[in-house]
């Protein structure tokens, strides 16, 4: 399952250690959160001294230590899952069918199962810690008729365990739906501790809210279906059901304030443990890494910025390298000078050439992708059906850039199955967005072709309608509407197009700041030679972006999620890209001013740049 490719030096030397550090900190913070949990769970307003003394004795008890060991195991597994599943490019299901496929994917099922188990484990620890009526599954009770003492099922314990399983599943489910494993980069750089401190209130708030929601949903679920696990457990474990106690799957049983309080407190503890691990992992992974611009030793050459930028297999390294480029272009004079320097024997601007070429290829690849999307999209804003698409000149352009988006959005099944699993690019299930960035050919599996075909999708309701009545057919056509792969979620395809645009934003920032800095810092004029191609690359991209925003749904703003650990930054990346692109062009035009007239570019592009010179954009 853990298919981390260890061959890249960056994964081996940096990412693994960052993950280890984040897990270590999560484990170290565990005693603190457990202590807070103990204090809250035993809280009694009227006996404060007894409360404090009970808690201190409990914190040193052997059962608590054992619980801590179990919780450490849970945190460890959560951390490993974070490392395995994290993704820098979110997978955006373009249709409801795709979303369904994502949730039912086998890997996702395993994930849910593991999280259910972990949720039960945490809840077991929580119930042992709370003690009292929650502590064990079996309790001695007197049978009413005979009066002998037998072991009965403790429904409170079972209730908490099942709640743990439910919360584990909902965490795993929401993780997919809300892209929990998507790691976004902050717009500003901060040290890890201030950033952690700044995010902590948000994590607490999210876990409390999520726990309250889950507690409500679980209580409702248990009210209706609680008897199923109860009878099953009691029959398999030969535990009696104590009839003298109020059963919990009744209204009076559930309206127990102390039970609901303990449920929500334990749920908060559970979610907080997981969210904290996710937060620490995000903070560690997105920390800026400074790559050397050039090295005096040839064996270190592959770790230098120009080589790393061209690397396509390790996404995290490419992202961090682009971030480093954007940072050095703004903040570091000495590293900029290294970029503009000439190679010692020969006098070639290898550094600048490699960096600018890599940035421009990223940007032109985005341009190609946008143009292909505009070709493929019919005027009503929906992607044309398969037959229409194949008639467009789409096939004449190389498949990997433009086509992949459309095979993914048309045949929702494909991107559906990719879900949050980024690192293994070779798998046929990997997200097309990643494959795009990595630059692999899209395998067009024949299986997808058959599933995608709209004819099969349409045949379903027809077959059914023959056997059932009119109403059933209406219902089914409604279902068909919901789940049909041709029904696009609004703006999802637009989001999917720009899913990896953080890389493009950094490339734009890096390029524009380097070009602007070259006005005064470039001693050998290495930037001048590439200036025309950079300018035309930016203008062409601007035209493509402008055309994209004229499509329906493209400029509609997504609804902002109030409080969720899932990061929704990817939903607004296209706006950020457009702003970054305009700022980049303005940065170059304001720096160079009238000198731009001496640059050799086509008349059309010059006209567009003139608009920027006059601040008319």
């Amino acid at each position, binding site marked *: 399952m853990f298919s981390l490719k260890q061959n890249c030096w960056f994964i081996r030397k940096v990412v693994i250690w960052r993950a280890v550090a984040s897990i270590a900190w999560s484990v170290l913070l565990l005693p603190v959160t457990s202590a807070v949990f103990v204090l809250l769970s035993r809280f009694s307003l009227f006996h404060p001294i007894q409360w404090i003394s009970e808690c201190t004795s409990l914190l040193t008890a052997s059962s608590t230590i054992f619980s801590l060991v179990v919780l450490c195991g849970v945190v460890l597994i959560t951390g490993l899952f974070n490392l395995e599943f994290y993704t820098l490019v979110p997978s955006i299901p373009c249709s409801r069918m795709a979303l369904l496929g994502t949730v039912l994917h086998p890997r996702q099922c395993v994930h849910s199962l593991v999280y259910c188990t972990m949720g039960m484990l945490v809840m077991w620890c929580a119930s042992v810690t709370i003690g009292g009526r929650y502590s064990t599954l079996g309790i001695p009770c007197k049978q009413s008729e005979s009066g002998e003492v037998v072991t009965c099922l403790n429904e409170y314990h079972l209730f908490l365990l099942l709640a743990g399983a439910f919360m584990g599943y909902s965490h795993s489910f929401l993780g997919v739906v809300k892209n929990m494993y998507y790691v976004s980069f902050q717009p*500003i750089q*901060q040290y890890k501790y201030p950033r952690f401190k700044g995010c902590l209130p948000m994590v607490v708030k999210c876990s409390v809210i999520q726990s309250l929601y889950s507690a409500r949903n679980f209580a409702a679920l248990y009210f209706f279906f609680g008897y199923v696990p109860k009878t099953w457990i009691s029959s398999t474990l030969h535990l009696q059901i104590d009839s003298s106690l109020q059963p919990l799957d009744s209204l009076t049983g559930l309206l127990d304030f102390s039970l609901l309080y303990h449920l929500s407190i334990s749920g908060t503890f559970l979610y907080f443990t997981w969210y904290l691990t996710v937060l620490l992992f995000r903070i560690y992974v997105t920390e800026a890494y400074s790559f050397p611009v050039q090295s005096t030793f040839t064996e270190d050459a592959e770790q230098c910025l120009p080589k790393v930028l061209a690397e396509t297999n390790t996404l995290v390294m490419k992202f961090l390298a682009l971030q480093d480029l954007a940072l050095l272009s703004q903040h570091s004079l000495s590293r900029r000078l290294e970029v503009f320097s000439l190679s010692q024997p020969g006098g070639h601007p290898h550094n600048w050439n490699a960096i600018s070429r890599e940035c421009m290829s990223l940007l032109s690849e985005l341009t190609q992708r946008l143009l292909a999307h505009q070709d493929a999209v019919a005027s009503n804003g929906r992607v044309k059906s398969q037959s229409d698409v194949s008639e467009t000149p789409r096939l004449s352009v190389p498949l990997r850039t433009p086509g992949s988006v459309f095979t993914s959005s048309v045949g929702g099944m494909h991107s559906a199955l990719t879900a949050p699993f980024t690192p293994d690019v070779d798998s046929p299930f990997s997200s097309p967005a990643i494959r795009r960035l990595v630059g692999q050919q899209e395998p067009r599996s024949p299986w997808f072709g058959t599933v995608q075909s709209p004819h099969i999708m349409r045949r379903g309701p027809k077959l059914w309608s023959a056997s059932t009545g009119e109403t059933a057919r209406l219902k089914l056509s409604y279902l068909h509407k919901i789940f049909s792969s041709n029904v696009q979620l609004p703006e999802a395809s637009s989001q999917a197009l720009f899913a990896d645009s953080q890389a493009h934003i950094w490339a734009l920032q890096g390029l524009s700041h380097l070009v602007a800095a070259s006005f005064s810092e470039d001693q050998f004029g290495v930037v001048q030679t590439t200036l025309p191609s950079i300018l035309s690359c930016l203008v062409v991209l601007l035209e493509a972006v402008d055309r994209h925003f004229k499509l329906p749904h493209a400029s509609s703003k997504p609804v902002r999620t109030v409080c969720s650990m899932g990061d929704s930054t990817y939903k607004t990346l296209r706006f950020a890209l457009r702003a970054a692109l305009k700022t980049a062009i303005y940065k170059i035009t304001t720096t160079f001013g009238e000198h731009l007239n001496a640059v050799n570019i086509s008349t059309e592009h010059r006209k567009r740049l003139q608009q920027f010179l006059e601040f008319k954009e």
Partner: protein
Amino acid sequence: MCSLGVFPAPVTAAQTLFERNNELLSALHPGEHSQACDLPSPQFTRDTLKGHSRPESSSRSVFLDQRDTLWMRSAGAWRDAGLYGLLDEITNSAEEVPRFLAVGSACVLALLRWASSFHGSLFPHLTLSSDEMVAEFSQMLDWSDSALRSFAWHPHTDKFAVALLDDSIKIYKSNSSPTPTLKHRCQRSVCALQWKPLCGSALAVACQSCLLIWHVDPASLSTRPSSGCAQVLSHPGHSPITSIAWSPTGSLLVSASPVDTSMMVWDVAAESAVPLQRVGGGGVTYLSWSPDGSRLLAATPSALFRVWETRMWTCERWPCLKGSCQSACWSPDGGCLLLSMQGERVIYALTFSDLTGGPKAASVVADLSETTFPGPDGDLTVGGEVCSLSWDPRGERLAVLLKGDSQADNHPSVIAVFKTRSSPVFELLPCGFVMGEAGAEPRFMQFHPHFQHGALLTVCWSDGRISHVPFYFSSAGLLGGDSPQQALASNTTNPSSNKLYTEQIS
């Protein structure tokens, strides 16, 4: 150290037109009107602008009293005024709710009020209402009474935006193209405006409840852009916003509110914010980004300000002796920061350099205590607290808006302009006072960001007029020999100030 005593005596009778040959010339000189530049100078009077007579929530008194059910009223109170409103509603309708609920909510309400009054005694500004707070911390002198609420030049073109008393914003361009008027439902009590650098269209507006980003297409001929052109950015607990600052690269926007201890760093396009919290100070009132983008000043309502470095976003604390930091400006290279404190009549300077790792103490560079100049219609007193500071983009002129005394009739607010010199040592030299027409006092000022022939100061006056005062000089190094003599010549009429001046040259 420079003081007001060495300044040439202000000409009270006429409006200052421009500076030429190191002399501020006023309208008294014949034949000088031809020098006026072609920038629009609109005038707004309070009568033509109808402000909001009352806040929206109090409009209910107009309507007939309608008894809703308790649930409806509670829900309404929760929506309108939050927890306080809800508790207040329950306490007031004691006859309809169970007794324990009414008593409980009254107790909680009293407890909350006591806690907030305690908090308010620590930070007195928290007891102000939202409008009072904006008026207190705005860079506009006498904000609540002024027809003009805020003003901002576009950093790259001849275009400026003016916020008016009626909560609308007008945009003027140098040529006679239409002037768009921006109105939005959320645009209330505008405290600050700033155009986005490296962009032709985006204007950030600090409002009472939120932050608005207008995208005004410069090519459009429309005079009323729809409210769909505006992005609304808000964060709970982060209002009213009294200061905003774009990073010089245009990628980030920072907003500050006196009630929020954290300032927000916005990625505007993505509409996401990163809060940067520091507890001390009780809020953030004023922000100023250094022109090179490396540092950001954040003033708090207490006697404390912070200087953030913008690479890793760490900050230095600067506790002040007396009041809070009222205004500040950066030198164009970002190496020097001039500050003024509330209750002090001096300008402080902090010099930053990357080699020494930052300054250890602020030095006083100008003394602005009251000085009396004899004039034809009696004595004129100038000097006082600094309301705002502005430094021209070439770093040669510094304009200081000095608060007057509204009780005394011969002590108006004035703008004192200094010449600045940074080498060999940082120094302020007197230039003169910028006077308006008779009876008009300056309220706000800002330098034009890219005036060709020197510097151009735009002043908003108390009579609602916006005027432009050009300073014609050739850049760099002209401050050598002749200007002290010029100052000496104009100061011979003022014997009291000569002593100070001779001390300075000796």
